[in-house]
């Protein structure tokens, strides 16, 4: 940049640097700090003194060193090449950094977010002379075996006429079209950039309608999420937050997954990197990596970049949503993001709110989740896209009264509360069915009633009532012992246990169990409820309780979740067997 404007460092305290002499600098503008030219972002302006959060370790920075303005806010580069990438919190490609500086991330390392050495084939959709508006698709690039990347008219060009457009092969800097706008001609390149803290515009937002199928039985059946919806997964350590997030990233029926590892373990990101290329997307049969973008800012990487990482992730996700795709973003964990806010706030000496978190934490969290939605995208073709957000929360001490959990619960519609006691008894996913909720339940019920089976809602409600009743009965058993219960209540306990062990419990590490389609989920639940119907009828007819509780066919129910997806008929066959077996029991 020519004619650089220079300021001067006056104070360094960890990741916070204060500088003066940067007249005209704007809030959230990117600056380069010190002789090492570290990346930083302006987060406070007080008269002459500007506070900057620096995205790299500030060792060796001191008063008197220069600060340079860039004139740009923190932005991400958007274009072909995002899929399959792994970025840090400020969109530096981690694979390129390994080539550049080895196994450890050195300060000042830099690499373009999109690889310039890769050439893409641009296929025009628009023609010369067409009138286009913001968001219209100019052409496409085949980005991966699954993803067709749409090159759109940037949102800041309200309307224009296509002056020149042609098929072209080149890297992301290649000009693919020339537009004639009211302000003069504009070249459109394959890649665009967008400031991360500004939501990308849409035409309109609509309430989510369609369930987001995750293949996880407890989620899809009892606490469903919608495409465009928001969910949070709070839980103490060891309760399986990350496994739930990984499962959703693997099996959600969306087009694009953006996975943000925010302040979490390095080995977990390695796990994703090693596993995803080998897993197949159940919808397309292609490796999962072909639809995935990873953002990894592990806990030991600079804290300011961690704060930026969720914004980097969501801006990438919004960009794919704007193409008309269904996108899901997993953020693991939003508590680390809130802690990064707290750390910067503390260094700015702001008045703290609850537990030292800044007073604006709640509104930041709310604004983040509000970037989700089911939307009509910009552009004249009225295409629709969805962006679903799933945030893990790591409450201090596993206590859900923690400010981050509470601030999150105020905005999200689905709550999957993880329970340490379930995890200790090795019941996974450890989602507590008594405390969790989904505000999309009605929407999803009516969708599933119409599209899958008219009994969907009825069966779900019946199963949930059994689980609730079980909790009450267990209290009773603790006081008076099992023998004091009547046969009907004993049967309730038995059926509820079957629902817990053979339906809710799901092994993420078993090839057959890790994903269950909606029709199979319905069949499994129907099977268990069928057993209840038959057993209760038999009880009334004088069959002994013990004979029903120890029915050998129960083992077949227990094994039913391992029946492959293409043999769902076998589940119906088990139903018949149960009818027969119960009918054969002696009646007194």
């Amino acid at each position, binding site marked *: 940049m020519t004619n650089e404007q220079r300021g001067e460092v006056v104070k360094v305290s960890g990741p916070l640097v204060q500088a003066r002499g940067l007249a005209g600098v704007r809030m959230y503008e990117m600056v380069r700090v010190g002789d090492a030219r570290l990346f930083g972002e302006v987060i406070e302006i007080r008269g002459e003194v500007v506070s900057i959060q620096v995205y790299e*370790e500030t*060792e060796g920075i001191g008063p*008197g060193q220069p600060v340079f303005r860039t004139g740009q806010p923190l932005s991400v580069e958007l274009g072909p090449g995002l899929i399959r990438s*792994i970025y840090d919190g400020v969109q530096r490609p981690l694979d390129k950094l390994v080539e550049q500086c080895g*196994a450890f991330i050195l*300060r000042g390392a830099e690499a373009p977010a999109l690889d310039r050495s890769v050439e893409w084939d641009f296929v025009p959709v628009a023609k010369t002379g067409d009138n286009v508006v913001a968001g219209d698709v100019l052409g496409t690039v085949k980005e991966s075996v699954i993803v067709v990347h749409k090159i759109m008219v940037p949102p800041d060009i309200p309307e224009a006429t296509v002056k020149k457009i042609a098929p072209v092969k080149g890297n992301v800097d290649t000009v693919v079209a020339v537009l004639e706008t009211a302000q003069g001609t504009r070249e459109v390149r394959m890649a665009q950039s967008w400031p991360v803290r500004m939501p990308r515009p849409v035409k309109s937002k609509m309430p989510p309608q369609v369930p987001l199928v995750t293949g996880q039985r407890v989620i899809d059946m009892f606490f469903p999420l919608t495409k465009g919806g928001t969910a949070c997964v709070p839980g103490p350590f060891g309760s399986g937050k990350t496994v739930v997030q990984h499962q959703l990233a693997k099996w959600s029926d969306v087009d694009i997954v953006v996975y943000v590892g925010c302040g979490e373990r*390095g080995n977990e990101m390695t796990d994703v990197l090693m596993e995803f290329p080998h897993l197949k997307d159940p919808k397309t049969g292609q490796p999962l990596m072909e639809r995935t973008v990873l953002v990894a800012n592990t806990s030991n990487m600079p804290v300011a970049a961690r704060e930026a990482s969720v914004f980097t992730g969501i801006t990438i996700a919004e960009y794919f949503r704007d193409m008309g795709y269904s996108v899901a973003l997993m953020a693991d964990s939003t508590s680390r993001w809130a*802690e990064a806010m707290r750390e910067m706030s503390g260094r700015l000496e702001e008045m703290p709110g609850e537990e030292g978190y800044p007073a604006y934490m709640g509104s930041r969290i709310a604004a983040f989740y509000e970037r989700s939605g089911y939307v009509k995208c910009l552009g004249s073709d009225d295409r629709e896209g969805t962006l679903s957000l799933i945030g893990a929360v790591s409450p201090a001490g596993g206590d859900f009264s923690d400010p981050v959990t509470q601030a999150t619960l105020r905005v999200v519609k689905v709550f999957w509360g993880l329970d340490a006691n379930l995890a200790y008894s090795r019941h996974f996913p450890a989602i507590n069915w008594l405390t969790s909720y989904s505000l999309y339940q009605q929407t999803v019920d009516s969708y599933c009633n119409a599209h899958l089976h008219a009994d969907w809602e009825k069966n779900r409600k019946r199963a949930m009532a059994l689980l609730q009743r079980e909790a009450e009965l267990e209290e009773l058993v603790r006081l008076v012992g099992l023998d004091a219960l009547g046969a009907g209540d004993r049967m309730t306990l038995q059926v509820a246990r079957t629902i817990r062990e053979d339906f809710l419990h799901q092994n993420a590490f078993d090839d057959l169990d890790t994903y269950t389609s909606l029709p199979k989920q319905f069949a499994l639940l129907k099977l268990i409820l069928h057993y209840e119907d038959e057993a209760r009828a038999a009880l009334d007819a004088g069959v002994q309780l013990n004979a029903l509780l120890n029915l050998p066919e129960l083992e077949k129910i227990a094994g039913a979740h391992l029946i492959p997806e293409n043999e769902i008929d076998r589940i119906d066959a088990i139903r018949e067997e149960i009818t027969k077996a119960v009918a054969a029991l002696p009646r007194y």
Partner: protein
Amino acid sequence: MATREYRTARQIIGPLLMVEGVEGITYGELTDIKLEDGSIRRGRVLEVSGDKAVVQVFEGTSNMDPGTLTVKFLGKPQEIGVSEDMLGRVFDGGGRPIDGGPNIIPEKWVNINGNPMNPYARDFPNEFIQTGVSTIDLLNTLVRGQKLPIFSASGLPHSRLAAQVARQATTLKSGEKFCVVFAAMGITFEEAEFFQADFRRTGAIERAVLFINLADDPPIERIAIPRIALTTAEFLAYEKDMHVLVILTDLTNYCEALREISAARKEVPGRRGYPGYLYTDLSTIYERAGRIKGRTGSVTQIPVLTMPEDDKTHPIPDLTGYITEGQIILSRAIHGQGIYPPVDVLPSLSRLKNKGIGEGRTREDHANVMNQLYAAYARGKNAKELAVVLGESALSEIDLLYVRFADAFEDRFIRQGEEENRTIFESLELGWQLLAMLPRTELKRIREEYIDKYLPKQETTA
């Protein structure tokens, strides 16, 4: 650059020294502080603002008179000289030898803060480490590159367990270079002596590097000591191809030193007065465990911490649990029964165990046996609780069997001698013997073929 020596120290607040009128000072810089009597203490710049610098003094500020100090800024971050010759030696919290031996001639100088490992360059930890302790090997398997802390409490034998692991840890492969880096933070002389004597007695000291900061040594040194130890470990692992086991004890003392500095700086406190950045700070220690693609060596960490009031939700164990890949929890109740090592099996966890076990790593039936033992022990414990409320007569026959199983499990499986080094195969054998107490139909989590193959034949029903 202007003069780098100042006699302008103005204030001393706890471990911090404020120096005024400085110029060209940078954040994180190392300093030498010369006292009136000529002795020199080390410090590090924690904050610079205009012409004022805040210096954290490692050896403490006692006996310092600001008016007489000369503060020299060295223009470089804190570094340690590392060398393979450090094996077999004992150092203090500043990296100076205290075993009476000669100084180390460094092969290179390295910044003790290290750099974050690129997640893309990491190799996934999946090689089994045999510690010889059944509750770890079979149930909470440790793998190379993992960080698996021991959550203990005052009065529990965590030191003995840590020493036993350090002594016995090995892999099933042969011909690999293995060593231990041990860092003691604020532990008592007796504890430190126990470790040193134990290492000497068994000859383990030949393949160990020890860093010792005792309870009466300056607390501020405890901030640097885990980083010095890990820098040494990384050097030995990634440049000398060794498999390094790092034992850090006791992290609770480390966190308290951190809190002391934070309080002296009047920072806004987070939970229980610990600084808001405690998570980030701890992660810069724990995350230095790992393996790197294409390199032989590895860094495995076993940090030890004592939970204040045995409380797992205290910020130190809580934040640790969020960073580390599992935890081994010691239990006062089991200790009270006279069982060593008093590992509380049910809440203990190794997140990476599934990656390190099974055919080719340990044995094909490992995962099944592990799950079955867990399930059976959990059921036995539940039955015992019920028996306390309702009396043993309220238990069904099968529940009674589980109660007996749980007792035997604690007595024979959890309990083992301090010198008893069980191979994973011995542990598996023991597991099978215990499972044989239960009817075969109860072994639902084990595949039929393994039951046929491994279940002891003589006593199929108890």
